[in-house]
């Protein structure tokens, strides 16, 4: 399961909401699955299952609603509320059809390297996630690339009478601190992708959707942003996926005349070209990015301003 840190951040929250809005426009009916048992197995929130469940139904659902994924558009499901004996039978069936070594390789989906000492529940986890897909009866299983191993497994172990899901994966957003390597995957590129993603265990590596404007400004200001480089540049990545995602979006940069004066970009391609050519300084890019991101996230701040008790859940 894709982990959600203490608070919903841009990767999990905002990016998901933008992708899902596109899917909805294509006629797809999304479900956001709140994987409480999976969080419990993965030791989240101190292994306190009732707390996990209340946070799932409270804060997390609200985070997505605040981003525009209201209950008329998206179906919200708490995992444990759906589990019945057919589900557990499927978990057993999948487990019988999968070798231990393959299942262990799949545990990278939990965001832990194989070398960590895992408990037995962790070995059940990938089978549970595959079984989730069949239980929900979905046509499309969607997640970040870090989940692809279990999706490939799920396509191979379809129980009789159940649907084989199409797997759709998005590239994970880099954390603000830039590329990191933590040894998750045999493939170095996948390792960097998984290790670099926004993570609550790295302070200021992520922006939370209800961060104050000041916090957003500070985090973006401190973000890794190599000059004249678009590759592995988290700030440009945010511009591409959030600010200049849609046709017709523009990004305005205010600058004193001596540094080039004000400029407006009508596409990410334009922005990237200018940045690589050294026509745009990282500081100016960051200032504009922070400002526009803040604007985009204003509905979330407003939503949580009148619901402070949800944030106190932690």
């Amino acid at each position, binding site marked *: 399961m894709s982990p959600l840190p203490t608070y919903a951040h841009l990767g999990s929250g905002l990016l998901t909401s933008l992708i899902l809005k596109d899917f909805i426009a*294509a006629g*797809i009916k999304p479900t956001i699955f709140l994987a409480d048992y*999976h969080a419990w197995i993965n030791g989240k929130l101190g292994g306190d299952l009732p707390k996990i469940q209340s946070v799932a139904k409270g804060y997390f659902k609200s985070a997505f609603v605040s981003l525009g994924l209201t209950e008329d558009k998206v179906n919200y499901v708490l995992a444990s509320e759906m589990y019945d004996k057919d589900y557990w039978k499927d978990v057993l069936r999948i487990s019988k059809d999968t070798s231990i070594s393959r299942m262990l390789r799949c545990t990278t989906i939990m965001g832990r390297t194989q070398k960590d000492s895992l408990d037995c529940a962790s070995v059940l986890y990938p089978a549970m996630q595959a079984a989730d897909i069949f239980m929900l009866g979905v046509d499309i299983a*969607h*997640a970040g690339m870090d989940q692809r191993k279990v999706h490939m497994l799920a396509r191979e172990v379809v129980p009789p009478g159940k649907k084989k899901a*199409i797997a759709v994966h998005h590239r994970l957003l880099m954390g603000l601190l830039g590329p990191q390597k933590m040894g998750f995957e045999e493939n170095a590129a996948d390792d960097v992708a998984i290790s670099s993603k926004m993570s609550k265990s790295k302070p200021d590596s992520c922006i939370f959707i209800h961060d104050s404007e000041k916090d957003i400004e500070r985090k973006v200001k401190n973000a890794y942003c190599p000059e004249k480089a678009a590759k592995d540049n988290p700030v440009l990545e945010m511009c591409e996926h959030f600010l200049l995602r849609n046709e017709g979006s523009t990004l305005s940069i205010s600058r004193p005349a001596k540094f080039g004066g004000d400029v407006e970009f009508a596409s990410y391609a334009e922005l990237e070209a200018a940045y690589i050519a050294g026509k745009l300084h990282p500081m100016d890019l960051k200032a504009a990015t922070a400002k526009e991101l803040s604007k985009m996230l204003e509905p979330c701040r407003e939503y949580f301003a009148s619901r402070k008790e949800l944030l106190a859940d*932690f």
Partner: protein
Amino acid sequence: MMDVETKISLVKRKPICEVVTEQELRELFESNNSPKHYIGFEISG
């Protein structure tokens, strides 16, 4: 109503980087106007 190829390109927009398989997705859209999807999240702390 949106045609199938437009729907496919909407699904394939960045940062989506992989569809397994695109042909199955095409067949899905051809036979089903409201396919079911899910995305799962662990609740962390």
